[in-house]
């Protein structure tokens, strides 16, 4: 008993520093990844887990260097497959806290298949999807989240690929936790990271991350001091959808149509507004469709926070239930009996 208590005390004593590995960070100066790394390292001690029980797995891309910088168990794997590797690890070891770090190319292009299947299976792990709308490590080609018309080295005349709406895609893939945050809002990111870890099931956290080399300012509309309050809406469960620099704008749901209204006018007040409900799938579906280009007239604000959360059985939990059930039915394994099979004969 005393030993267990010691271990616990030690865990409590961990600080962000304990999660910093001895490796030099090789991201470009000014990259949004630094902010994310810092928040993740500072959130880790709050999880109350010994660091040997934490695993970071990544694929390929700038974001996927992440595990090298965390002083936990980690694997920098192959392009797009962290989701599949994490699934196997979690099936084998449900006791671990598993974090997947991926980018828009890694998870939505080459690894799209594994992402959607992980979401429907609902393994209890956390996906941090760094979305910078560009291929950084290969030096600046457009990505599956780049906007139509994007001029890059591979699209000198502008991209003609209609981009993914990542959160809508994840809703369609039966995700049980869908959230969005941004590299420039560290406090918000911390809150959501903790909620992601607390969620029992696959947590999908899209993090808007600025690539200051190949796609600088892609999320300027949500970070610029002048504009961000008019372009973003920070969701809180049970609270009305209010936004705007003066907090004077709100969203009402007109049938299936979200509409922006002015709550400082006489026509609308707070009680008319859409109340955010993380548990409501229908509303979450609509929220994921708040995906307008912020520069557009009357653009719906981009939601940040937890768009959807539901409790559903986890794959690894069901797997172990089946194993226990069959063990109860068939009794403990007897290899000699298995090798002999049903029909045997003796030769003397």
């Amino acid at each position, binding site marked *: 008993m005393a030993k267990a208590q010691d271990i616990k005390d030690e865990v409590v004593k961990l600080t962000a520093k304990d999660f910093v590995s001895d490796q030099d960070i090789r991201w470009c100066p000014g990259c949004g990844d630094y902010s994310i790394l810092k928040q993740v390292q500072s959130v880790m001690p709050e999880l109350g887990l010994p660091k040997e029980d934490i*695993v970071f797995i990544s694929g390929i891309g700038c974001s996927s260097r992440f595990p090298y910088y965390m002083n936990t168990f980690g694997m920098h794997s192959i392009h797009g497959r962290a989701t599949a590797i994490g699934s196997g690890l979690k099936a084998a070891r449900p006791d671990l806290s598993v974090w997947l770090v991926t980018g828009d190319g890694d998870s939505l292009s080459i690894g799209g298949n*594994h992402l959607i299947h992980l979401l429907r299976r609902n393994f209890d792990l956390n996906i941090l999807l760094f979305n910078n709308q560009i291929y950084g490590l290969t030096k600046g080609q457009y990505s599956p989240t780049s906007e139509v018309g994007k001029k890059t080295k591979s699209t000198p005349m502008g991209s003609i690929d209609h981009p993914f709406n990542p959160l809508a895609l994840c809703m369609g893939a039966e995700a049980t936790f869908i959230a969005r945050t941004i590299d420039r809002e560290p406090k918000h990111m911390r809150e959501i990271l903790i909620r992601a870890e607390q969620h029992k099931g696959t947590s999908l956290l899209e993090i808007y991350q600025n690539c200051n080399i190949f796609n600088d300012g892609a999320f300027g509309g949500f970070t610029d001091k002048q504009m961000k309050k008019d372009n973003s809406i920070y969701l809180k469960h049970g609270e009305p959808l209010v936004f705007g620099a003066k907090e004077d704008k709100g969203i009402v749901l007109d049938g299936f149509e979200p509409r922006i209204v002015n709550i400082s006018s006489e026509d609308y007040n707070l009680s008319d507004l859409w109340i955010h409900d993380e548990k409501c799938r229908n509303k979450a579906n609509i929220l994921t469709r708040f995906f307008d280009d912020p520069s557009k007239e009357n653009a719906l604000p981009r939601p940040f926070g937890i768009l959807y959360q539901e409790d559903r059985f986890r794959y690894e939990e069901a797997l172990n239930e089946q194993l226990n059930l069959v063990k109860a039915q068939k009794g403990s394994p007897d*290899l000699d009996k298995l090798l002999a099979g049903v029909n*045997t004969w003796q*030769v003397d």
Partner: protein
Amino acid sequence: MTQVQQKLEQVTVLFAGDSGDGIQLTGTQFTTNTALFGNDLSTYPDFPAEIRAPLGTIAGVSGFQIHFGSVDIYTPGDRCDVLVVMNAAALKKNLSRLKERGTIILNTSGFDKRNLRLAGIKEGDNPLINRSLEDFKVHEFDITKLTRESLKESTLGTKDRDRCKNMFVLGFVYWMYNRKVDSSIDFLKSKFATKPEILKANITVLKAGYHFADTCETFSNRFEVKPTKMAAGSYRNIIGNQATALGLIAAAHKAKLDLFYGGYPITPASDILHELAKHKNFGIKTFQAEDEIAGICAAIGASFGGDLAVTASSGPGIALKGEALGLAMMLEIPLVVVNVQRGGPSTGLPTKTEQADLMQAVYGRNGEAPIPVIAATSPSDCFTMAFEACRIAIEFMTPVFLLTDGYIANGAEPWRYPKTSDLKEIKVQFAKERTPEDPSYLPYKRNEKLVREWAIPGTKGVEHRLGGLEKDKETGNVSYDPENHEYMVKIRAQKVAEIANHVPLQYFDSGTENSKLLVLGWGSTYGSIKTVVKELATEGIDIAHAQVKYIQPMPRNLGDLLSKFDKILIPEMNNGQFITLIRDQYLVDAKPLNKIKGVPFDALEIKQAILNMLKQ
């Protein structure tokens, strides 16, 4: 009526019919019965890739060949003594496989106008009428009608009644070979436990077939194939894929690890997944992934977590797994990869057999990525080699390829199964916890066998990061240092080479180093070569036979062994892959014998090649 018993040393029976006729079931039932009777045997199921290929056509013919005897049996037999055909297409497709003056048992209702047309036989060419079968012993019955007759009392509909006709055939053949029907009645009772009407009908028809053979006066005698004199022990019948699954389970059990299987359905490997999924009380986690890549990647994740991880597939699936195989090799974690080879390239011939993925296993990755490769020689040997694959993977912290193929994976033979206590021990030593006072954990520090430690999450003080980027020789940190890269490439190759010191030496299966010629086989050609070499010995021709099972690395005495021969023949079911490896590594002038027809070697083909070579 009393019949004379005619004693036979060995018999080959080929059952053939539409893929919906229950041919595979008939074959496996006859196999179980034969095994329990005590005959040595070997089987060869041959079925279309389509689940319900067009009825009555050549493409839709399903076959099951069994070769059994009172002597040792090594192959399913080249040509058959008895051909059982349920329709015209089955006859047309298989008649060439019947020996001269062989026996045909034929269902006449499968030779009506429609069936003849579907088989592409002109009405005038109906073999029942045009006397083309005169040289064979033909026994014609309207099996469909006889089945219906025997089920007059049954409440089943016509379709369900007709589906029992394979039991009529089975009963008939049981009588021919002087067998009891009990084993099949027991089987039917468990298969149709919840369907009493169907159970009753099947048993009725089975017995009807048996009694019909007895009373129809077709045969003046019954045949008797006495039990084989086999080594003392406990035996069972086993199919290759089943044996592979049991080998994996046994290895996990001996290593005291949980078994994790990640895979994607593919012919002819899926039965490994099916078999494993049946035995979840052994704590086996089977994960049917979204694709081949996810199958192996999930296995890599499970291995990182400390499970004994396995994935299995066939050529096209293995191609997809290539990048992940390279990762597993870089990570140096245990992983067993089974390739149940089928006819290639591309989608190729899914239900046919070939040994054409050897180069893929040995070389099929980017960069210098050596992976141990071993191969099974027969259905029961799949057990031994699956166990070996696990042992090598764990003891050497490496992915290991196990090559089997459709021929032995679906084939069956008697197996003198081992006891758990007879199996080798597999020692697993996970890295131990480290305190801050201990020297720090170095992920790529190697022991005397060049093997690094397996440090699994949850172990205090050994947190570390692995990855596909080149790593420093000790810390495992990313390293672009030129000297380090060359060192790591060499040390990884050396580690795999070191395995040669921990596998059995190559031995002669027949003959000696003084024999005139060496037949060097690998994998599933074992039975065909063995049959020929034995036959030649009885004719006074002394041929040596060695069957290689450890291919990368090869047994360390193989070079010496080869150097004793002027003449070396290498038969393989591909266009010459193993021979390329042998010539490359040992500079010997071996000669190829290649067969790329989707079917195993006939013993005669190998015999001819040996005789030709001896003349030169």
